Each structure stands twice: as structure tokens, then as C-alpha cells.
């Protein structure tokens, strides 16, 4: 029993190391006083961070990514909400097929999706810009939004919406007085998840971006210049911290939402 436990522990340590050691190099070398990524470490510095903050192009790329992510997240969630409501509340003819189609973009390789969108946009004569990137991101965020929102909507009694109608409210007001407040934890999760998907995306953005780079594209571009690498590491470390904060927050919202749901079912 004891040895088995011991092996499990070793396995767990290896597993976690496999996942996190590569990531740990990022903050580690971002404070290293050398342009070369190599051991031994030569000394502590914050100059890469200072350099990064002084670099207008970084800030512009970061701002572009935030803009695209925010718009894509809001749009995907706003589109997902009525879809999730329809699929969980009504006997939609062919509902299963609709859901499968909506989620299909999860299974299409992004490179294929990127090329398709590029062809479509050039056929339509739409010039590439941050807007076309945003459009592409809405396409890849929508399945995530629908999935998260559907699981939330499945979690509460559909009688609650009927009760609202019964008490004299229209469908529209029922949505705002009952459905939306109860779906709110799901809406927040959907916003965060969509934002992360957009912020993280390289391939779609690479195909659809015009002259304005998003952050991943900017970072990719910087890798050609070895002396810029430590700045990229500093940037990566900051993104890592921001992501961790976001994930913790999303998890908190989710567990808070689950507790809420538990209350609704129980009692």
C-alpha cells in the first residue's frame, strides 16, 4: 500500500513537472541579466521589463489583442445566449444537428478555417484589419460560448421562466428578469473563456490580420531578433500572471455558480 502510494506521488511530481517546468523558464529568464537563454544564470535584472514597457509597438499589439478579445468575447456570448436558450428550452426541430453544426468549428483545424475565411473575405473584397481578425475569433469562440451557456441553462428549472410568463411578463422581460440573472455566472464564464481563446489565437489572426498585429503575431515577429528575446520573455511572464488571475477568477465564478445551482435544485 505504502509503495503504491509512493509511486503515485512520483508519477504526480513528474506529471506536474512536465506541465509546468517549461512554463517556469519564462519568468526565470525574464529576470536574467543576459540576452542568451542559457545556464548558468548571470544575474538579476528588471531591464527587460523596463525595455518592454518603453516599447510602443508592444503596447500597441497588446492593446490590439485586448480590443479584439473583448469584442469577440462579447459578440460570441451575445450570439451564444439566444442559441443556448433555444437549444435548452424549446423543442427545436433538428436541434441536435444545429448544435453539431455550431460546434463543428471546434473540429475544423484552425489552419483550414483561417484559409477558408481568408478566401471568403478576399472574394467579398473585405480588406484585412483587426475587424476581420475579430470576425474570425467570433467564429472560433462561439462553440465555447454555446457550450458554457447551455450547461448553465440546463442547470435551472425551466418552470422559472414559465412562472415569469404566468405572472404577466412578456418573453423579452422574462429574459431580462429571470433568464439573464440566472445565467449570469455562465455569461461571465463564457466572456472569460472566449476572451482567452481570442487572446491566445495565433493562426486565425495570422491569416486575417492586416497591418495591425495582435500580440501573438507581434511576439512571433520578434523571435527573428535574438536580442529582443528577453523582452518577449518578460511579456510572456506578464501574460502568464494575467492568465492565472483570470483562470482563478473564472473558476471562482464557476464554483460560485455551481453552489447557486445546488441551491436551486435542493431545498
Amino acid at each position, binding site marked *: 500500500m505504502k509503495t503504491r502510494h509512493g509511486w503515485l506521488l512520483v508519477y504526480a511530481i513528474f506529471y506536474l513537472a512536465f506541465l509546468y517546468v517549461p512554463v517556469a523558464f519564462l519568468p526565470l529568464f525574464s529576470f536574467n541579466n543576459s540576452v542568451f537563454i542559457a545556464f548558468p544564470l548571470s544575474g538579476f535584472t528588471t531591464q527587460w521589463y523596463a525595455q518592454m514597457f518603453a516599447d510602443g509597438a508592444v503596447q500597441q499589439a497588446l492593446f490590439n489583442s485586448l480590443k479584439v478579445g473583448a469584442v469577440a468575447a462579447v459578440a460570441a456570448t451575445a450570439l451564444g445566449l439566444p442559441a443556448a436558450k433555444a437549444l435548452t428550452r424549446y423543442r427545436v426541430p433538428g436541434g441536435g444537428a444545429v448544435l453539431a453544426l455550431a460546434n463543428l468549428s471546434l473540429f475544423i483545424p484552425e489552419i483550414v478555417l483561417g484559409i477558408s475565411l481568408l478566401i471568403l473575405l478576399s472574394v467579398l473584397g473585405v480588406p484585412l484589419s483587426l475587424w476581420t481578425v475579430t470576425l474570425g475569433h467570433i467564429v472560433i469562440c462561439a462553440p465555447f460560448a454555446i457550450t458554457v451557456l447551455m450547461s448553465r441553462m440546463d442547470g*435551472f428549472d425551466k*418552470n422559472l421562466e414559465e*412562472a*415569469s*410568463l*404566468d405572472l*404577466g411578463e412578456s418573453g423579452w422581460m422574462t429574459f431580462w*428578469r429571470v433568464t439573464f440573472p440566472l445565467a449570469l455566472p455562465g455569461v461571465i464564464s463564457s466572456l472569460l473563456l472566449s476572451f482567452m481563446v481570442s487572446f491566445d489565437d495565433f493562426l486565425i489572426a495570422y491569416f486575417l490580420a492586416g497591418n495591425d498585429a495582435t500580440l501573438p503575431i507581434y511576439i512571433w515577429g520578434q523571435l527573428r531578433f535574438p536580442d529582443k528575446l528577453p523582452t518577449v520573455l518578460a511579456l510572456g511572464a506578464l501574460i502568464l500572471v494575467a492568465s492565472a488571475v483570470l483562470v482563478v477568477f473564472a473558476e471562482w465564478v464557476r464554483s460560485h455558480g455551481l453552489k447557486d445551482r445546488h*441551491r436551486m435544485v435542493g431545498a
Partner: protein
Amino acid sequence: MSGFLHIDRVTKRFGSVTAVDAVDLTIRRGEFFSLLGPSGCGKTTLLRMIAGFEYPDGGDIFVEDQRITDTPPNLRPSNMVFQSYAIFPHLNVFDNIAYGLRKERLARAELDRRVDEALAMIKLEGFGARRADELSGGQRQRVALARALIRRPKVLLLDEPLGALDKRLREAMQIELRQLQKSVGITFVFVTHDQEEALSMSDRVAVMSGGKVLQVAGPRELYEAPNCREVADFIGEINFFDGIVAARDGETAAIDAPPLGRIAANAAGAVGTKVLVALRPEKIAFGPQGVPGTVASAAYLGERSHYAVTVAGRTIAVAAQNIAKSAAQGPAPGDAVHLTWAPDAVVVLPAED
């Protein structure tokens, strides 16, 4: 189009299943009306069509001669108490009860007064700030009731509202609900599968089965004069015997109903007509004379005892009130007994093929 709430040949199908099959009902103003039947009989579907949540495939619904079939639920003169109560979990008790008053645009003081009045009616004064999850099952049920009644509906629809409560609370709520209905004077349409609940609370009951209404009658008539085997069987215990009308003298027929022999009963039908004879267990008594049998088993249930009596190979259920305190008063298994009953206790139903 007489009556207050009129259901005119209403039909509802779900795929190949006919949930409600050409139902006609006329419910009177101020009546406590129950829809009674086993699960899947269509009673809840019928209620949901009255509320507007399901659209009938055929037929029409009228309230006070006004056709409401196409009226959406938010514009109907009815309110509903859901089986799950559907208390809004994100609102406190006050906001739950006040939910349906938004469109009346009341002044704050008037709104407070109306909600306080409703809280007093359900005996939950001071509970306004409580969250939905801080309420017990019985309290949630009352809040659901107040939330529906505060809109002063013409009809209150109740979908098994007492089903989730334990027995003692349920019995207390039955009395309370009945009193409440009398005091507000609103027509109640009450769905239940519990026959005792339906009998004890209702002015009239519609017994449903397979999407059809079998009988509409007051509780006593339903129990004492069921119109078919299914109703007799669903409401309470009953013994059935196949019989044939053997002779007739005006209203009274002599019926051969083995193993009871030739019995007298009020029944229609010419000589030779096949009938179904039904006899409630508590209508049968042990007497000095009558149909001879042997007690097969006896069960003591407190205020009454149940006996299974074998008569010529058939088992007949007999129930007797335990009026005397002594155990020696009732027969024991193995005892030879004679069964007797009043002629008017016999219910004669049409025979089934």
C-alpha cells in the same frame, strides 16, 4: 357556453401520444375543482393548456365566454402554482411575491401594503427579506401561492402543489388551502394523483385516464356512484363481481353474481344483461346470516381492520371499523363468517367486454 371556465373538446398530442383526448369540461365560478388521475393521464397537460404553456391541437378554452385559446400565458386571467414552486432563486420573498405587480406600477407604499397583505395571508409576516433558499418546503409552497394570488386571478391553477410535502404538513396545507379558497372566492383548478386529497378538498372532481375524462362529480357521488370500473377502482378499494340480470321488478333488479348468489340492487338493464357488480369493503358487514365464507387473513390498522374472506374460492375484501376496544370483537383467520350488506350499497356498472 355556460360555465365560468369552459374546456371545449380540447385535444393535445405529443408525437404519436394523445395526452389529452377531446376533453369537455365546464368549471363553475368560485369552485374548487380537481383533476384527478394516475401519472400520464393528461391532467397536467390539460392544466398547462389552461395556463397557456401548451397549445391545444384541437378544441378551445373559454373563460367567462371569452376565447383564450390563442392568448399567450402572460395575458391570461389565470395564475399557476407550479409543482416545483418555481420560486425565483435570485430574488427574496418580497420580490418573488411582488414579481407579477411590476406592470401595475404601484407606488412604493401601495406595493409594500399589497405584499404585506399577501405575507399575512400565508402567515409569513416578516419573511420578506428572506432568500428563497432559506425557506422550508411548506414556506416555499406558501410563497408560490401568494405570488400567484396577489395578481387576483380569475382562476388559480395548482399542479400537485402538496406533492413534495410530508404527510402531516400536507394534511395541514389541505385544510389551509381549502379555507383560503373559500375566503378569496377564486376558482381553483387543482391537479393531483392523490384520491383522498381530491375527495377531501374539492367541490367537484374530474377523474382522468388515458387523456379522457371518465367522470365529473362531487366527492361523495364519485365514491358511492362511480360510473365505470376504472373510476370505481381508482377511488378507494372495491370488490368486483361479474353478474347477469336475472329478474326485474320496477327499479329493482335481481342479479346473479357468483359467488354472492342472487342479489338485489337498483339497476337498469333488461333480463339477461351482463353487468359488473361492485361492492366497497366497508359496506360489507359480518352478520348472523348472509353469504357464508371463511376468513383467510385479518389486518389490524388501528381505527379499522381489513379482512380477506374466501367465498367459494373467491377472495372478498371486507373492512370493519374497530368500534369496540376488545380484540375478541373481530373474527380471526380460519373463522366461518357470514357476509351481509344493504341492497343500496351495491353499485351496478356496465359490463366490460
